[in-house]
């Protein structure tokens, strides 16, 4: 029975997961203006895409947001993970453990709404951030990306042999020196993987960005979504194909880095 069942099950699984994506990629090379009618192979919509100022502008915004929020998320997430794994017991540790992973399970609508309320009331009381735009999206993305980085970094820090840090202390390095000389290099591959993950998550996000963005700061997913509501145009297929390519590469690199460090331990 195993002879035919297993390949069949695998085939079904792959079709279920990837058929939509594959059809999207195929139709991105469609000549016809009608999305569901095949009119021959062409890269016309890729060319059209490059002339679309709105899409290019929003792509640039998305890349900026993803870059900065991934950077900030790695810093915040690593610090959080380090405190939780190396500082022993302290008041509020349990609370922090729970709260650092809360953004992972919180519905995005709620995260988005609460951040929007926070930004509005901050603007009213502190005068900052003035209006909503790039900065507020970066802050919002940092909060939920940091949660992912913290989880990855925590796992790595737990696996790491703590006597490495003790050995460096023993050889005359102060605590800060030990962090930069030993801890950071050892967990770097995990942090790179975390960065890539944060970058992709930020690039993907529609819901939170919609809540906290302002005029003139529409991210790529926001633009696509609004375009699709007016009817699917074939250049969106081309754009989606490019994004899939980027995400695929990032995920593969992240996975490879994580596996390599796991093996080297």
């Amino acid at each position, binding site marked *: 029975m195993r002879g035919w069942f297993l390949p069949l099950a695998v085939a079904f699984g792959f079709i279920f997961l990837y058929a939509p994506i594959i059809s999207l990629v195929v139709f991105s090379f469609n000549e016809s203006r009608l999305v569901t009618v095949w009119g021959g192979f062409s890269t016309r919509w890729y060319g059209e895409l490059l002339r679309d100022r709105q899409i290019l502008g929003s792509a640039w915004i998305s890349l900026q947001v993803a870059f900065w929020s991934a950077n900030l998320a790695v810093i915040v997430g690593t610090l959080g993970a380090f405190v939780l794994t190396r500082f022993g017991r302290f008041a509020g540790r349990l609370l922090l453990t729970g709260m650092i992973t809360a953004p992972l399970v919180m519905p995005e609508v709620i995260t988005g709404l609460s951040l929007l309320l926070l930004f509005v009331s901050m603007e009213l009381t502190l005068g900052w951030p003035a209006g909503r735009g790039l900065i507020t999206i970066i802050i919002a993305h940092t909060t939920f990306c940091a949660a992912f980085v913290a989880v990855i970094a925590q796992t790595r820090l737990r696996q790491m042999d703590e006597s490495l840090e003790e050995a460096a202390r023993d050889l*005359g390095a102060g605590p800060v020196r030990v962090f930069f000389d030993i801890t950071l290099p050892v967990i770097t591959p995990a942090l790179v993987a975390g960065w890539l993950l944060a970058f992709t998550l930020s690039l993907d996000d529609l819901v939170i960005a919609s809540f906290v963005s302002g005029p003139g700061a529409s991210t790529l997913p926001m633009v696509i979504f609004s375009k699709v509501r007016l009817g699917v145009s074939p250049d969106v297929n081309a754009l989606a194909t490019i994004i899939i390519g980027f995400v695929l590469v990032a995920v593969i690199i992240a996975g490879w880095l994580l596996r390599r460090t796991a093996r080297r331990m």
Partner: protein
Amino acid sequence: MDGPAIAADTRPWRDPAARPFISVRDVVKTFGDFTAVCDVDLDIYKGELFCLLGESGCGKSTLLRMLAGFEVPTRGRIEIDDEDMAQVPPDRRPTNMMFQSYALFPHMTVEKNVAYGLLREGVKKPEAYARALDMLRMVKLEKQARRKPDQLSGGQRQRVALARALVKRPKLLLLDEPLGALDKKLREETQFELIRIQETLGVTFIVVTHDQDEAMTLATRIGVMKDGMIEQIGEPREIYETPNSRFVADFIGTVNLFEGRVEAAAPDMMRIDTPDLGPVLVSPQVGLSRGQQVWAALRPERFWLTREKPENAPNAWHGHVEEMGYIGHMSHYRIRLDSGVLVRASQSNRLRDEDPISWDEKAWVSVNPAAFRVLTR
């Protein structure tokens, strides 16, 4: 630097006027409601190779970590070279440690690993690397200087860890199960290598181990630990020949224990009545009184095995050999005496063409009165 003479031939611990180099006073360490180390008092002298010996969980590693500064004693005082260590963090102590896992930095080459401590001390780069290479030469690894730790064998990693711990010339080197991860043959070679290095450099070593053979081979003195307390401190010979408790006697080597009461204590001979052997004559020991409950301890190799009843033997019993194990240089026997008690005896096979007593034979076992050690606990 002091010559190599200090290691083995002088024994400062026998001199009551000698000043200890490390003194541990009434040290207690608790984790929550678990007491890991309990009222430990310990004096260690310059140039010693001191072994802390005990089963896992006996507190020996915690004691070592307190000396290195990774754990803070709950109570008590630790002094190294007359300096109180209470407020000194691990990076400013005159000690270095060799970790059980070796803890080599995986992202640095062997050379960088060894030079790391010198660079932190402020030694200039060229000098630090030159000294690191000297150290690697001593452990015969100068050819592997540019490799990463994961390209080395277990034995090579062990030597890198040793070189890294020694390169700063610490006053005190702490070694946590230094040979634990090596196979038997390599371990034996490395033991003597460790002694050679220790004698050449004149550094004081404290070694934590659970392996009694290792402790006996390496140590100038051994501290046997149990349940966070030090049971006995002494030279290997003292620990083996005059253990102070049944635990120590049993933990180091093999021992036959016979419970009994002191029957008569004459100045030249003492008699102990035991249910297992009947009356036993032993050389007198101080501090025992008539009627006291004691245990007569006897090492297996102190039994004489003969086919005929020995003449003029004060302690001789008849029995038959139930089991015999021939392992080359020695033969181990389990002998059932006529009283029903089973004793363990061993004989060294000094002659090639002997006709040794074998299993199922009847035999006499006899013991010199001086061979017993009488224990009170």
